């Protein structure tokens, strides 16, 4: 029987968030869900960093906040997490902006479908045989029939 104290719960929570995020990044096929998984993983990493700076029985690193002479937690991980949160916001905003463009151009956020589309577009651009065959068995390719290209989303030459 594992002793389930407070510390274990804290660490398991942080690592669990990180693992949920990592699993979501690998398993999801929708770009937006992948971004959400990234956000969850980020939250786990931030929690883990904050936990690394904890000192037993200490107060927040603000002078005059706790009793005089009381130990304070390490301020450096807190600053690192502050930086990480701000950068995370920037990354998320940029990712959402790119997703808006992808959805406008292709009408989907499914990575498998987008991959097939990209391959066919690159092949058409270069005038070479597209990878795989539309008549061949569907086993080798992720999607069997090639989806028709939308009229409004023509790739620019």
């Amino acid at each position, binding site marked *: 029987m594992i002793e389930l104290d407070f510390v274990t719960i804290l660490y398991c929570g942080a690592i669990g968030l990180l693992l949920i995020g990592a699993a979501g990044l690998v398993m999801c096929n929708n770009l937006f869900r992948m971004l959400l998984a990234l956000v969850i993983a980020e939250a786990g990493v931030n929690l883990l960093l904050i936990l690394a700076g904890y000192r037993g029985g200490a107060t927040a690193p603000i002078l005059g906040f706790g009793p005089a002479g009381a130990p304070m937690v390490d301020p450096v991980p807190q*600053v690192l997490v502050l930086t990480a949160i701000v950068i995370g916001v920037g990354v998320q*905003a940029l990712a959402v902006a790119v997703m808006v*463009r992808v959805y406008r151009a292709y009408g989907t956020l499914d990575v498998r479908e987008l991959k097939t589309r990209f391959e066919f577009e690159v092949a058409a651009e270069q005038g070479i045989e597209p990878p795989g065959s539309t008549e061949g068995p569907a086993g080798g390719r992720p999607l069997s029939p090639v989806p028709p290209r939308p009229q409004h989303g023509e790739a620019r030459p």
Partner: protein
Amino acid sequence: MRNVAAILFTGGLGFLLLVIASQLGFGEPPMRVGQGILDVAATEVGAANIVTSVLLAYRGLDTLGELSILFAAATAAGLVLGQRRASAAPDPEAGFILRAGADLLFPLLLVVGFYIILHGHLTPGGGFQGGVILAAAFFIGVLARPAESLDHTAIVVIEGLAGAAFIGIGLWALLADGEFLKPMLGTGTLGTLVSAGTLPLLSLAIGLKVGSELAGLMTSLSGTEAREP
């Protein structure tokens, strides 16, 4: 197959992290930098909030890098999204509750935002947190009335001036004392509003820059047309 690989990967990652975490020793941080900073920050920088003194004094250059990353992300997002056509139909106005709430909240959010920015060296908060609140104050009006969008020129001017002010304060310290972004103007009395030298000024610059950047970013995201023009 892919899911099995994913589960194996996450399981391995979790095992690795748990092993590392179990050997760390909770409650006794192995880093000695933090304790060193805690010992000297009050006399060297004079900010009651030691997180702020690390952010703006000891790691000031990193904060400048962070600001430039945020700036790059905001610029890139604006570039990717493009501008809304003038002929595009404006989004419909929000309901009465959101409009009245936006009018009511705007001054309160403004006050709270500036309070958090200016007290960043005394209480939890600072330029980044207060800047986000300022951005929310302006963005809530855009949500309520999409037709009256924010003035992008004003946003760009405020952002540029705030960024230039941050670098200018750093250069002033470089010329006067030989170290970039070193806190100037003395430490003052610990715990008062006018203390910690240039830290409140740097905080204000960061707050205005982050606020204008995020407001511009959210406005351009919300103003994006749903369909390709």
